[in-house]
């Protein structure tokens, strides 16, 4: 009887300790996951922000302004356009 009790007690202790360890691990993993999720959101937002910035820089009004005023370009006109036909 004593042996059985002692074995069970030992088992109980091991279980209790492993529970604590598992909880500790779970917390750690949870924190890591939270961090990763925040990172994911952040990267996603960065991507959206960059896409928006790129769009802002490539909007028609700006392209026209830069082309006309900085690069001194003129609109194309049919008189100065050569239309090429693809060989059949």
């Amino acid at each position: 009887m004593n042996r059985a009790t002692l074995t069970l007690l030992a088992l109980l202790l091991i279980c209790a300790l492993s529970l604590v360890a598992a909880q500790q691990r779970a917390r750690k993993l949870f924190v890591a996951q939270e961090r990763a999720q925040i990172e994911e959101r952040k990267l996603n937002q960065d991507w959206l922000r960059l896409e928006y910035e790129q769009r802002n820089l490539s909007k028609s009004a700006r392209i026209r302004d830069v082309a006309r005023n900085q690069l001194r370009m003129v609109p194309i006109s049919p008189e100065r356009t050569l239309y090429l036909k693809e060989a059949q």
Partner: protein
Amino acid sequence: MRPVGFSTTPNLVLRLPMWRSRLMLFLLFFVFMMLLLRAFWIQGPGNAFYEAKGVRGTQRELELPASRGKILDRNGQVIATSLEAKSVIAYNDTVPDDLATDKVQKLASLLQISESDLRRKLKEERKQIFLKRQVDPEVAQQIKQLEIPGIGLNNEYRRFYPEGEAMAHVVGFTNVNDIGQEGIEYSREDQLAGHAGQRRVVVDRLGRVVEEVGIDRLPQNGKDLQLSVDSKIQYIAYNAVKNAVEDHHAKAGSAVVIDTQTGEILALANFPSYNPNDRRYLTGEQLRNRALTDMFEPGSTIKPFTVSAALEKGSITPSTSMTIGASYLVGKKPITDTHPNGVLTIAQVIQKSSNIGAAKIAMNYLSPEEMWDMYSAVGFGQAPKIGFRGAVAGTLHPYEKWVASDQARIAFGYGLSGSLFQVARAYTIFARDGELVPITIERSPEFKPGTRVISAKTALDMRQMLETVTQPGGTAVKAQADGYRVGGKTGTAHKLVGKGYGNKYLAYFAGIAPISAPRISVAVMIDEPTGGSYYGGDVAAPVFSAIVGETLRTLNVLPDSNGKQTALDDKGPAEIHTASVQTQHVVSKR
């Protein structure tokens, strides 16, 4: 004598009654019983209440934000996107009452509110309260560094519109809660809106999440939406309208560009416009999508439909000639032309825009019912179903109610009304060999079958007549576009002011291009041009010309005009072949 001890002198013996000590014992026992009962209550039956109270201190419900869908143009360019912004929340049961004054002051200055306001907000009974919405990321970072317990930052989204004014009336805007208020943002709210989720978490004293208890709802992001509008063409149209309104000191202007093959709206521009990124100016007149919400009498732009009805009936041909004269009396007031004409062919009635001619065609060859059927078949009197709030149907009274003077005046565009959009759509029947094309604002670049209104022969005749309008002798030589043959019809309508017609005008031009194989239908309206000419041919036609030329080049449509086209070498025109139309196919990579 019995010795008496000093300490036990009988004089000092207290004769206490037995009941007093009993009472004391009982009271003590009673108090202990009360404590025991209380302890039992807290541990046992009353436990749930205290447990909930404990959880309230450490558990929180956090929102899992869902983003609103993006709006893209036909080439996949972003025209509305949501970027993260922080909102500052106070959890009032966690914020300490004895918060240091300098921290309160700093927080108040970061939030740009007064210290007393902030203190009042922190004392409110509500569990959590928004201190400020949509804070800039840098400010949010500074607030976080203050490390005030119970002050948290929540993720929110703010809407950005890169195209600004040019696209404002198409996309519309959202309010501070990210709910669509105007334009596509409003009409496609169901599709665009995201649905936030919720989760319960355990937090520590500083509000940091240490454990997740459970997810109540998963967040659902909104769906992206791709429109048929091309931001380049939209900008071209907006710019052309804006310049014309400024040059002619007009009140407003609009332009609509429709792809006649697919029925897609390529541009829908209005001026004055507004910047949807700036919340301060999101009220008033400039919000109106004039091309869709304003009703006007279409004036001479209706004449081609009157003539089509008569051609379709077979009672006239383009070369039928008729006497016009200086005036034509139907009802009380005589009908006159701007420039008196003698004898004109039907084609010249269109080319010279003769009111008398149009009225005579209606009175001599058409019944009110036939006219009504034509105008109704091309969409007048019915609100276009493209999902914009406030798109008007216009008025087209039942033909039974028309008297002779109504019939004569409706033939040249007075006595019925519609929106500029309806005019642009109606003109697709000339471009599509007699079919009215179904219209869409969402990208769908395949050819669409339409509803037949007139025969292909009539449509061809009309195209030839419409082209003469833009040729020498016509009313709109200024509508000619570089490299492309165009056709269309001018309109100059007296504006209804109160009950009569004042000296205010609307100048229109509606047309199609290129004439050899029409690809787009364009309608332009300039409202109240002042200073100089107010004729459609002088005010609206140049806008049409600018839009058509640039739009067709943007769409890679091959020029069909030989008149202005000269080759670079002496060997005659260079080989001309349709450049394959490349529509950019940028699919978002999310």
